[in-house]
């Protein structure tokens, strides 16, 4: 009779995680997902810092989705100061997000998730047998990186992403180059979608209690309003009223619930919600898939990710065209600090993200609150893991471990 199963070091996930499963009488008793990553106190270190320092500091919360943290903090800052940016700056930010998603999703799909489905320990190990697949992963990442480097200044933690806009903007030729690159990767993305659609995804869970994403008329990753799958809509200012955070006794990530329930965020939540808002080309591709959306299968997050890449690449092409048409434009508006509180939400690749800051009149931060996707995912992953274990009681430890890891990876916590 088994008592306990521990996965001490989750691999191919960003950060450090462990899972602890306890059984009693052949039944699952308790599941704990632990993040053992050291805390970094971003809410504290941002205090007393000038608003100009904030995006830079919070960028370091995550090296993969730094663009999201930066943009969420920037929109909170602009919100607090009542600054409005120009449509071109908005477009550049959206293009930046296209870059972020291409790189982050490609990294996740090809380097973290794919080996599971192909039966390899890592993507690098696949390079010999599947050189083209691995190359495609690198290529997609590279296009994303190039966009981030071009607009942000560096591929990771680019410092050109600032409250008020950008200190310098790409030239017309560079934008054209981005557009060309995006056109080039569309077939690669489509191949990615088919690849991930072709895998078999065992179903193990019931309907999600709730899911959350940013609301909008079109597929969007930035906005001021949020939608819950039960039909509730709320504004970014109300975020903390809905999403409750608790400190966990066994994990360094906080534990969040909405209306007392675990809730889903991330690509699957977004695609489920925005299914009708996708561009027609994406819709067409989606309609031909084996996988059917909306889906309640957590593992389908991988397919959703690939679909998002297509949607965003298409958006990127439109954005570059609009920017080229409105050339030359100013990349920056003036931001004048004043006392107040500002809110920013953004869809990070792995889910909704929330930043709130209060500033004094000189623009120094008085207090901050940041709710990361990882914190919000903790509860839903634990719930899913529970479902998974319940269904796999007959599986041996190694198998169970593998399935658990695959599931966690699909969330990319």
């Amino acid at each position, binding site marked *: 009779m088994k008592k306990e199963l521990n996965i001490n*070091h*989750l*691999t*191919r996930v*960003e*950060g*450090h995680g462990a899972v602890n499963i306890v059984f009693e009488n052949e039944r699952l008793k308790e599941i704990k997902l*632990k993040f*053992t*990553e*050291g*805390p*970094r*106190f971003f*809410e*504290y*270190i941002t205090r*007393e810092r*000038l608003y100009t*320092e904030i995006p*830079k*500091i919070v960028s*370091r919360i*995550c*090296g*993969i989705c*730094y663009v999201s943290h930066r943009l969420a903090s920037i929109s909170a800052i602009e919100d607090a100061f009542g600054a409005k940016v120009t449509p071109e700056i908005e477009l550049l930010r959206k293009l930046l997000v296209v870059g972020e998603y291409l790189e982050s999703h490609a*990294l996740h799909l090809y*380097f*973290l998730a794919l*080996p599971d489905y192909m039966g390899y*320990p*890592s*993507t*690098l*190990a696949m*390079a010999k047998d599947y050189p083209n697949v691995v190359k495609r992963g*690198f290529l997609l*990442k*590279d296009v994303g990186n190039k966009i981030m*480097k071009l607009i*942000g*200044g*560096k*591929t*990771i*933690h*680019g*410092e*050109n992403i600032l409250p008020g806009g*950008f*200190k*310098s903007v790409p030239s017309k030729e560079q934008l054209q180059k981005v557009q060309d690159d995006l056109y080039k990767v569309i077939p690669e993305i489509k191949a990615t979608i088919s690849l991930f659609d072709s895998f078999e995804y065992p179903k193990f869970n019931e309907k999600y209690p709730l899911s959350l994403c940013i609301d909008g008329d079109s597929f969007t990753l930035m906005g001021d309003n949020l939608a819950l799958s039960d039909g509730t809509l709320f504004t970014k200012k109300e975020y903390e009223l809905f999403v409750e955070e608790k*400190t*966990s*006794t*066994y*994990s*360094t990530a*906080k534990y969040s619930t909405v209306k007392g329930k675990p809730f889903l965020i991330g690509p699957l939540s977004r695609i489920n919600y925005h299914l009708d808002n996708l561009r027609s080309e994406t819709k067409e591709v989606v309609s031909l898939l084996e996988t059917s959306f909306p889906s309640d299968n957590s593992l389908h997050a991988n397919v959703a990710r690939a679909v998002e890449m297509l949607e965003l690449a298409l958006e990127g092409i439109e954005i570059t065209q609009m920017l080229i048409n409105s050339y030359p434009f100013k990349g920056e508006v003036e931001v004048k600090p004043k006392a107040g509180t500002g809110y920013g939400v953004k869809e990070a690749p792995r889910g909704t993200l929330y930043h709130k800051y209060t500033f004094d009149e000189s623009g120094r931060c008085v207090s901050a609150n940041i709710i990361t996707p990882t914190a919000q995912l903790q509860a839903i992953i634990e719930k899913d893991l529970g479902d998974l274990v319940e269904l796999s009681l007959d599986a041996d430890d190694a198998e169970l471990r593998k399935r658990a890891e695959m599931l966690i990876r699909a969330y990319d916590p």
Partner: protein
Amino acid sequence: MVKIGVMGLTGCSGCQCEILNCEDAIYKLLGKVEFSYFPLAQDSNSFEEFDVLFVEGSVTTDLDEEKVRKGREISKILVAIGSCACYGGVQSQRNDEVTIEEMLKEVYGTTELSVKVSKPKAVSEIVKVDYELPGCPLDKRQFVYTVAFLLNGVRPFFPKTPVCHECKLSETECLTLKGIPCQGPITFAGCGAPCTISGVGCQGCRGDCDFPNYEEMVSILKKNGLSEGDAFRFIKVFRGKQAQDGISKLISRGALNEKGA
């Protein structure tokens, strides 16, 4: 086969991602080296012995400390990558201002966390480090150079010249002269000055160059619109202990007075 490990402590994984961005180099390396430990990228990881171990992140928990001590024991060469591992990183910028308990209480509402937490430290404060490749994140080219040097049995060579050097060579207009706060003159070059090229002042993510002139830097930053306290905070963001020591030395010399405000 040369065994290489890539280990993450407390950090943002940005440096490890940057390593994964070195596509060409990784392909070239595949036949020659074995990534025997790289949990971010692979399943089968053995933490047994390494020719070179790259360590990302600061030492913040007892687990971190345990891991890095073990890592040191089992590796011939230990390289700290990124500013977290080299200096303590952004999370250590207030080490000199508050206690860890205070921060825990404020952020988590309790000092009892599932792991034992201490002030974020650079790897070199715990174990001997053979080389440091700072940067937030580290520079791709420097990583590749380092691997090439080490595979050839030669220590890497990166003179600690200031970012101004690379900024000039790319013929970028001097931001300090334009009145934009920039830490280029006191920051260790090697990044290719991407920030100043985009018109943003250097944020100092690579730490100190040799013999940095903090005093003049602070006085220039003041001329460029920062208060003395903000200038300190600006300098402190990435440098961890380096800046805390440097600034307290300035204050004790009486060169500068203000500490807070």
